[in-house]
């Protein structure tokens, strides 16, 4: 077994709100590791802490507690020059397509910029690679001369993807990279990710709220809820036989909105809102929405148990209950 490319060890990230009155526990004790060349998927509802986790993995957020290792090194033990060097190998494609695009820079210069910073290649070679990537994300060469405001939402997101892919970093955190894309372009982009993975051995941490996307691209999937993992396992096994009631609820969530007249008959499995990460429920944090919750769930935090080789779940009744209604 080779050394994991990233190891996350009991990571906790807390934010103090602007008014300093509350502490948000955005990531609250997460451990996992990502192997070289794999695609590790993270799914979870809005606000569950996925982006926060992704940013911590590429050292854009410092752990409040716990550690993130890049290979065998703790990046925070490095000098700032070394850290900068290392960050290049660990990149993120942001959920917000504007975050990495300078509005005053032409598209082709934005795509080439990371290569310019790294240096070591001729300008002609860097230009060639930037143009090639523009083509591979399905945009005509003419787009290189435009500015970000002259692009549609989906086009901007593709530039964002191209910019990071030119660098061929060892690990890329992909934060909702295809949410803004329609199905046909989405398929092209996911194929591009797969091709580059094969060509250059890239590793991806794939963050999304879309179960269809994550189960299609990932080798392993972690299911996040209120800052913690509820389940982690091989993609196929997790989709076929989830152990955690939350995963099961996510799987059976009806992707189709219904008019109110039809709603009584609908199986609403995930009732209510996610509780606030400021003050997560005692015991199992999913218990307030869990159809299988029992007394024990509020009293005792469920252990992280290995149910099958490499397949973990944090539920007192993992695998013994089924929440699916008839």
């Amino acid at each position: 077994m080779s050394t994991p490319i990233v190891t996350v060890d009991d990571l906790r990230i807390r934010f103090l709100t602007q008014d300093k009155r509350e502490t948000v526990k955005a990531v609250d004790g997460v451990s996992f590791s990502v192997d070289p060349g794999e695609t590790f998927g993270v799914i979870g509802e809005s606000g569950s802490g996925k982006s926060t986790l992704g940013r911590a993995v590429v050292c854009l957020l410092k752990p409040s507690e716990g550690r993130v290792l890049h290979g065998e090194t703790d990046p925070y033990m490095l000098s700032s020059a070394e850290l900068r060097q290392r960050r290049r190998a660990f990149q993120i494609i942001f959920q917000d397509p504007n975050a990495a695009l300078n509005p005053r820079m032409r598209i082709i210069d934005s795509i080439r910029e990371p290569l310019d910073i790294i240096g070591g290649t001729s300008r002609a070679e860097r230009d060639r690679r930037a143009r090639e990537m523009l083509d591979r994300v399905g945009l005509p060469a003419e787009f290189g001369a435009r500015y970000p405001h002259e692009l549609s939402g989906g086009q901007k997101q593709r530039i964002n993807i191209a910019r990071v892919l030119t660098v061929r970093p060892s690990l890329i955190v992909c934060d909702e990279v295809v949410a803004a894309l329609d199905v046909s372009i989405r398929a092209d982009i996911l194929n591009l990710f797969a091709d580059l993975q094969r060509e250059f051995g890239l590793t991806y941490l794939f963050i999304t709220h879309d179960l269809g996307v994550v189960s299609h691209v990932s080798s392993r999937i972690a299911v996040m809820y209120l800052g913690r993992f509820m389940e982690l396992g091989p993609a196929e096994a997790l989709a076929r036989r989830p152990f955690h009631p939350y995963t099961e609820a996510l799987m059976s969530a009806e992707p189709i909105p219904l008019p109110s007249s039809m709603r009584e008959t609908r199986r609403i499995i995930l009732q209510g809102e996610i509780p606030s990460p400021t003050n997560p429920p005692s015991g199992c944090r999913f218990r307030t929405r869990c159809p299988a919750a029992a007394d024990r769930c509020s009293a005792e935090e469920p252990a992280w148990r290995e149910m099958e080789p490499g397949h973990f779940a944090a539920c007192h009744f993992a695998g013994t209950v089924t929440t699916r209604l008839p």
Partner: protein
Amino acid sequence: MLELAGITKHYRTRNGVVRAVEDVSFTVPPKGTMALVGESGCGKTTIAKIILQLERPISGTVRFEGADIATMSRAALHAYRRQVAAVFQDPYSSLNPRLRVHRIIAEPILAHERPGRAALDKRIAEVLDIVGLPATAATLYPHEFSGGQRQRIAIARALALQPRLMVLDEPVSALDVSIRAQVLNLLQDIQAEFGLTYLIIAHDLALVEHFSSDVAVIYLGRVAESGPTEPVFANPRHPYTQALLAAVPLPDPDHVLSETAATGEIASALNPPSGCRFHPRCPHVFAPCPATVPPAYPAGAGHHVACHLLKDSPA
């Protein structure tokens, strides 16, 4: 309610003219939900911006309840802006990072009315609740929220205006299925209660099928097919609509990313194909297609199809 006729918008770039929107016409019925669908870059946001007067068309008219918005008096225009609210595609740059959520939601309200402090706070708490955020969210800044939470703040801001027409550009793309269904159900309830009209842009076709009453399928800036959602989805007549619907992801994970039936390169709005803009990718292309732009042939009640195949085989 809202009527677009012959709307055309071109952008000048260093490499020539981008024909983003070309001769687009459609009508949004009162209390209806009109969906615009089509591939990335086909002109959906541009159409929304024209309706919101953020862009000026080079030709064509937008009529709101019969009145041309380009020639409205200042007072009428002020009234129009009061009645039309928008949720922009980009939930990041549409929220001012230096303002608390309370101010962000209050500002558009205060541009038009003077509610008392208590009434304003109540309204803000109400719309936050509708989108599933706690009232305490009002005291925070945009960067303190996740992507999906910001999208919900943008929806809350539009709802707070109590508009009559809402333009929603990809309003739920950052939301997971459970919260997405909640938000859409609430939008439908509000529509039923207050008689709102929606224009929604979405790339999720399952959502469009269930949420909209009418649909316009856009291909490279032109309307390929339009009409009531049900017949268009049940019996698509334009080869592009047929290809688009064939690419709908099926629940089976093995087919989630089934390829679109449309083949070939995505043509560019900078240099759109002659005649029917879809002809280089169309499996049924024949003689008239590269030569002439197909008119919108009627294909049943309110259903129009811009394809030469319809010429000899009407509804």
